[in-house]
């Protein structure tokens, strides 16, 4: 058996995913199998797409590298699990490749570890040759307007977290008993929220949406969703697939303002194909509107910025939003919105602010740029801090799809490998890696969740889902996750 395996390892020249051979030998934080204990040890902070793709590239490029991924939650995959909409399961296929990476013999996943609280970055830097920050953006940009904290106003991050089972959003209880919802922002997240609010329950009931969200949506009185942007149709940030899904949504019609589209038809011919197709689809929606008898509607509203959330007569919750009307100045890529002084009030009981996620600093030892809300870096090398790298949203800001993060993570991994090969990282020093960190965490009463233990949580979620006719029923409670992981 061993000779056959050695033969195979020699013949597997290029790894597209990871060979079944090394997967057979997958070990869990214990015996490392065939890998050398004197190879580079790298620590990755964050178990989302950035973390996994960075790990993948490192493992592929260096056959002697050992990579450990630390994740705060007991469950891996970050926004692939908590951000991607329940009705977009294909986007979650990347979980397959992440799973292969986690099961690689030279990779270990450590869940339930809060870096910055349970262990510091400095402690990690002592235990590893290199540390990569891939912890994403867990905060959100605030609108910065009066009334923003009134009940009825949510960040898209929290609303999405609620229907996707993020433990910290399980008590959100959004009140869906109002006819009109206003979403600020017109990116794909905003469109996801609009679609989930208006989709027929039949479309959602077999997905991995949480049961309480499904029930809340089944009883929802929301019939009209306005998606508001401060600039014009040519600046809309969403992509055509998501817009097409809105246009094709059963039982809904589009409610647009033709005035918002003045001059757009003339501009079409000069647009690059992607922008042109997107704009043409919007114009089609303006013209055709959709089924007049449809009881639900959605609309894009342009040239409008939120200036105040208006409270109801009882002053206790949001009842409307005041929007300032803008005009556009400049042209091409540097078009900006400028106030005109005109205002418009919209009655609504649900306001969702979808203007961007935001990274936060997790450790005072790590440089942080509060203006751009990222870790300052040069091509993924953290400024002024040898041996510290970053990838994903914490490196470039919270934009881009999974593939964008994938390429970015590959870039960081390559830079790290370059530094190893150029001697910028001293690999001659033996680093203890996970052994030391595990021991340290033990003295602090922190117990980790290994990948095989996540798989128990995974199996339980699939089992519960099956009994409800759904892809999975996510566990919402961290304690419950831990109980199952460690059972």
């Amino acid at each position: 058996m061993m000779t056959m395996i050695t033969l195979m390892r020699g013949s597997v020249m290029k790894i597209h995913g990871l060979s079944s051979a090394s997967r057979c030998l997958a070990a869990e934080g214990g015996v490392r199998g065939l890998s050398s204990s004197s190879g580079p040890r790298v620590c990755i902070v964050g178990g989302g797409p950035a973390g996994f793709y960075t790990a993948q590239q490192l493992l592929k490029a260096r056959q002697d590298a050992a990579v450990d991924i630390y994740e705060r939650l007991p469950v891996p995959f970050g926004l692939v699990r908590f951000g991607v909409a329940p009705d977009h399961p294909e986007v979650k296929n990347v979980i397959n490749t992440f799973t292969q990476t986690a099961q690689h013999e030279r990779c270990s996943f450590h869940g339930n570890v809060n870096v910055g609280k349970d262990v510091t970055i400095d402690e990690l830097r002592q235990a590893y040759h290199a540390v990569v920050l891939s912890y994403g953006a867990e905060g959100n940009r605030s609108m910065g307007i009066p009334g923003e904290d009134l009940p009825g106003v949510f960040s898209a991050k929290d609303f999405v977290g609620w229907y996707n089972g993020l433990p910290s959003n399980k008590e959100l209880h959004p009140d869906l008993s109002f006819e009109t919802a206003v979403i600020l922002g017109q990116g794909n997240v905003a469109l996801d929220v609009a679609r989930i609010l208006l989709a027929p329950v039949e479309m959602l009931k077999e997905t991995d949406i949480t049961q309480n969200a499904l029930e809340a949506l089944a009883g929802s009185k929301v019939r009209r969703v306005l998606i508001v942007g401060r600039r014009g149709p040519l600046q809309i940030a969403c992509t055509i697939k998501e817009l097409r899904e809105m246009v094709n949504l059963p039982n809904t019609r589009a409610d647009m303002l033709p005035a918002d589209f003045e001059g757009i038809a003339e501009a079409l011919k000069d647009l690059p194909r992607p922008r042109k197709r997107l704009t043409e689809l919007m114009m089609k929606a303006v013209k055709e509107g959709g089924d007049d008898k449809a009881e639900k509607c959605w609309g894009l509203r342009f040239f409008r910025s939120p200036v105040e959330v208006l409270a109801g007569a009882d002053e206790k919750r949001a009842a409307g939003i005041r929007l300032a009307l803008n005009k556009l100045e400049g042209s091409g890529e540097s078009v900006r919105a400028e106030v005109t002084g005109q205002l418009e009030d919209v009655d609504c009981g649900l306001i969702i602010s979808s203007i961007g996620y935001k990274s936060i600093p997790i450790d005072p030892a790590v440089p942080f740029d509060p203006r751009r809300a990222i870790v300052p870096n040069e091509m993924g090398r953290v400024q002024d801090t040898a041996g510290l790298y970053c990838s994903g949203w914490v490196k470039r800001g919270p934009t881009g799809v999974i593939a964008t993060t994938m390429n970015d993570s590959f870039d960081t991994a390559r830079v790290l490998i370059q530094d190893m090969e150029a001697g910028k990282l001293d690999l001659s020093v033996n680093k203890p890696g996970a052994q030391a960190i595990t021991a340290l965490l033990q003295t602090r009463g922190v117990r980790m969740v290994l990948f095989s233990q996540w798989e128990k949580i995974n199996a339980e979620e699939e089992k519960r889902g099956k009994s409800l006719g759904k892809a999975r029923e996510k566990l919402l409670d961290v304690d419950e996750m831990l109980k199952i992981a460690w059972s």
Partner: protein
Amino acid sequence: MSACALRVFLQRAAVTRKAAHQTFSQTRAFPQCVTGSYTHSRGINTLTNSLRAEEKVTVHFLNRDGKRISVKALTGESLLDIVVNNDLDIDGFGACEGTLACSTCHLIFEEAVYKKLGRISDEEMDMLDLAYGLTDTSRLGCQVCLRKDLDGMILHVPDVISDARVDSEKESSTAPPKV
């Protein structure tokens, strides 16, 4: 150990094209060569099919590093299948496993070959629109199936957007989407 037996043993974990979290079925524009959800493992099929030499076609991938990778493949396979089955070293190719949920299998064709290809669906076009370095002869590899008359075609693997070339403060309208 013979190459055939080795390949069988080396049966890659079947790349499950079914969604990792499969839910209600939404019709997707799969290419003609692909029918239904294809979770069958590739190993055995490739082995028996490799014995039928006349259905083999050669394609050349011009990789990002300038290297040409020539591969013999079977008619009917999608270009994504070919990359996966042959473990071609193309970073990040086919992230969504052929379900039209990404643009990482973006390939650029020679003009004459491009004109011979099958119809492009709206769904493919929608995802292709997001690809970096989109050209007039671009297609998504998962939607193009090999035919005899495509023998010898050269597929250019486009560069992907990378750190050094992007100033995130200033994005062009052809840049990847916001989120």
